[in-house]
């Protein structure tokens, strides 16, 4: 990192993060008004919007986006807040936290497949209780997975968002001095849950507001989980946009572009309503606080939150177990709890394909994460050396790529690339991944990087170390663990990306995730098992290394073991 490069890194980082988003929105705007020279169309016209509005599935698809998105966010937020209220600081909570942390990195697609294999009529749960309890000799004829109301899809989102919100909230709790507040509240006769909700919740929520918005925007516009667990006729709006995009008829791109803007409007509208609801709830909450109720059903609330948190971790964990079983399964007839035999045949058959996809996945994820890490360290170091201050607006910019739905700007980005004749392929896919990897790497590393005691740097400089030497010889080694964790976060985010790979790769870039999601339409559970497991492994292994490497390197350094 030569000195002249450092000052421009923050600007470069913002450009790499927001440039594709802006370009993609621009690229959706033109075709949405009928202007697509690549297809010989010149606008402006309102035809695309008319066509989208004429699509009979639209009201249902839009409604599905709203219900699944808002539902998943509200339920996971409630469970997480009640969990924190009832249990933060207890041993049960630490156990749950330790269970949930690795689950965070399980890719959405793998978690969704696991859930489907558990709760489908022919899923593992039905097999375990049949025919002994249910008497079923054949899978019952009910639509659980891909149900028309999107309830299963909502469940799939909830089990993945709970760990995310918990870990984000725990980080926020540290700054809220929650333990002393809860002690005071309890001394005044409040129950744990009520006391926590009245004293700590407002402070914690103010801290996690942006991540909650991210969850909401994500859940409203997710594609891979919706393809696997969501309804089909019609699908959610985001899935329909992707269908239009993959139609060989270029006219359909106009519909996709108009749909993308509609999706954006939908998300913005719901975010605004959510913000209004925050105000209303705050008002109601003030009244609730003023009435001084001590809380009567606290234990029940706490117990049910713990139960739901447990069920949600169990769903992911058992989902991975059943994926593993299927990947090694020989013949497995319906009511049997386990396959007749275990075999390596599935792995032999799908192994080579999965391995090729793994190489592509690793290449993309590795490059993108390392670039994101270098940019992040550069930005943070520039902030430290030049005394820059990050404003609230800066934080918003960081969250922007995560708040704008992928389906709103990726179609436009692809159309734009088509228009300028850019080749689809690995490099554009990497750039697209960077948009989503950068914010997460930055959010993961910035707190520990800024928490580093700057007096250590003063001492090192007083000992004659140049700024670069301080960075390389003191700061980075001391921060090895958070740096590797941030790298692992970046890898996991990249591994899990579906839509950027699919759209920007033009179908020519094959990663574990695109392969796995493509299998959703078929019924080959063994292949899904193989790909789902590989995908999970690719996301989990870096986290294991991020824990193991510092523990090994610093095994004789007590001062670095817990921090």
């Amino acid at each position, binding site marked *: 990192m030569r000195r002249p490069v450092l000052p421009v890194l923050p600007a470069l980082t913002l450009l790499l993060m927001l440039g594709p988003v802006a370009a993609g929105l621009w690229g959706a705007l033109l075709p949405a008004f009928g202007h697509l020279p690549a297809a010989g169309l010149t606008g402006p016209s309102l035809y695309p919007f008319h066509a989208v509005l004429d699509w009979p599935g639209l009201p249902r698809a839009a409604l599905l986006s709203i219900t699944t998105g808002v539902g998943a966010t509200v339920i996971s937020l409630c469970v997480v807040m009640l969990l924190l209220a009832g249990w933060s600081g207890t041993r049960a909570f630490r156990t749950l936290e330790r269970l949930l942390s690795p689950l965070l990195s399980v890719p959405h697609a793998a978690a969704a497949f696991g859930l489907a294999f558990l709760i489908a009529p022919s899923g593992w749960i039905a097999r375990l209780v049949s025919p002994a309890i249910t008497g079923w000799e054949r899978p019952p004829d009910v639509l659980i997975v891909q149900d028309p109301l999107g309830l299963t899809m909502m469940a799939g989102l909830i089990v993945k968002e709970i760990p995310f919100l918990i870990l984000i909230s725990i980080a926020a709790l540290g700054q809220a001095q929650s333990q002393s507040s809860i002690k005071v509240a309890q001394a005044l006769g409040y129950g744990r849950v009520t006391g926590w909700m009245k004293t700590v919740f407002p402070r914690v929520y103010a801290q996690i507001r942006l991540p909650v918005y991210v969850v909401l925007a994500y859940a409203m516009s997710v594609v891979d989980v919706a393809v696997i667990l969501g309804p089909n006729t019609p699908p959610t709006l985001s899935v329909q946009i992707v269908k239009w995009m993959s139609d060989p008829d270029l006219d359909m791109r106009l519909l996709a572009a108009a749909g993308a803007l509609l999706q954006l409007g939908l998300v913005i509208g719901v975010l605004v309503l959510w913000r209004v609801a925050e105000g209303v709830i705050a008002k109601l909450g003030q009244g609730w606080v003023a009435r001084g109720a001590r809380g009567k059903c606290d234990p029940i609330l706490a117990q049910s939150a713990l139960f739901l948190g447990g069920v949600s971790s169990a769903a992911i964990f058992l989902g991975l177990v059943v994926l593993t079983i299927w990947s090694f399964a020989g013949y497995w007839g319906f009511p049997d709890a386990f396959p007749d035999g275990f075999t390596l045949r599935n792995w032999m058959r799908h192994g080579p394909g999965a391995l090729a996809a793994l190489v592509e996945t690793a290449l993309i994820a590795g490059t993108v994460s390392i670039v994101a890490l270098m940019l992040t360290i550069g930005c943070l170091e520039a902030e430290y050396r*030049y005394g820059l201050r990050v404003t609230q607006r800066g934080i918003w910019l960081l969250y922007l790529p995560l708040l704008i739905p992928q389906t709103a700007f990726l179609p436009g980005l692809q159309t734009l690339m088509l228009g300028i004749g850019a080749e689809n392929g690995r490099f554009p896919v990497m750039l697209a991944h960077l948009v989503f990897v950068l914010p997460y790497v930055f959010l993961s590393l910035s707190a520990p990087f800024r928490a580093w005691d700057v007096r250590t740097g003063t*001492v090192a400089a*007083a000992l004659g170390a140049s700024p670069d030497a301080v960075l390389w010889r003191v700061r980075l080694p001391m921060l090895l663990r958070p740096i590797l964790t941030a790298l692992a976060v970046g890898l996991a985010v990249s591994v899990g990306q579906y839509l950027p790979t699919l759209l920007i790769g033009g179908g020519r870039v094959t990663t574990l995730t695109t392969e796995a999601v493509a299998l959703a339409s078929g019924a080959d559970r063994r292949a899904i098992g193989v790909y789902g497991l590989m995908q999970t492994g690719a996301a989990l292994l870096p986290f294991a290394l991020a824990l193991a490497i510092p523990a090994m390197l610093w095994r004789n350094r007590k001062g670095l073991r817990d921090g």
Partner: protein
Amino acid sequence: MDKGLFLRNIEISSQKGRLLSVSHDIAPGAVLSVMGPSGVGKSTLLAFITGTLPADFSAQGTVMLDGHNITDLPAHKRRVGILFQDDLLFPHLSVGANLAFGLASGGTKTARRDKIAEALTEVDLAGFESRDPATLSGGQKARVALMRMLLSEPCALLLDEPFSRLDAALRAQVRALVFARAKARSLPVLMVTHDAEDAQAAGGPIITLQAQR
């Protein structure tokens, strides 16, 4: 040669207004104690001298060290050593590597190793090279931090409440050691403290900063 650390008409301001003004010469081997309530800007003065003044502050005046104007030099070229109340030993390096980090560069491998061994012997820590700093006692850490700083051959020594984390018995001992080593090397010393006993033990002039209103 104008040996010593000369602070000439130094004025430091924050956004809220003027924080402090100091003008004082510290001769080699002498100790200037700066006292005052917390928040008065004692550490800010040291940050100005080490070249690490946060961007929120602005400063005027000159710092002369052994005849050189170091006011605008980058932090690592000033040759001003500093000790904080925490030892701030680098947790990822062994005791020996911490000292090697401080030891001015140059010299053969064996010569450097010998110098480090010698420095450890000087403070009764012979053979501690491979120890993890986190396993040392508070007094031992303070001594390693002192020697690490001295090995970098500074021309002046700044002390930022350096003894306030040590218990009473250890405190007098470490304090005597620091002042003795500084005197032996004829270093001008600037100490900020809120402890009158520290200032008395230093035996030099004392200036007291007043909170500006």
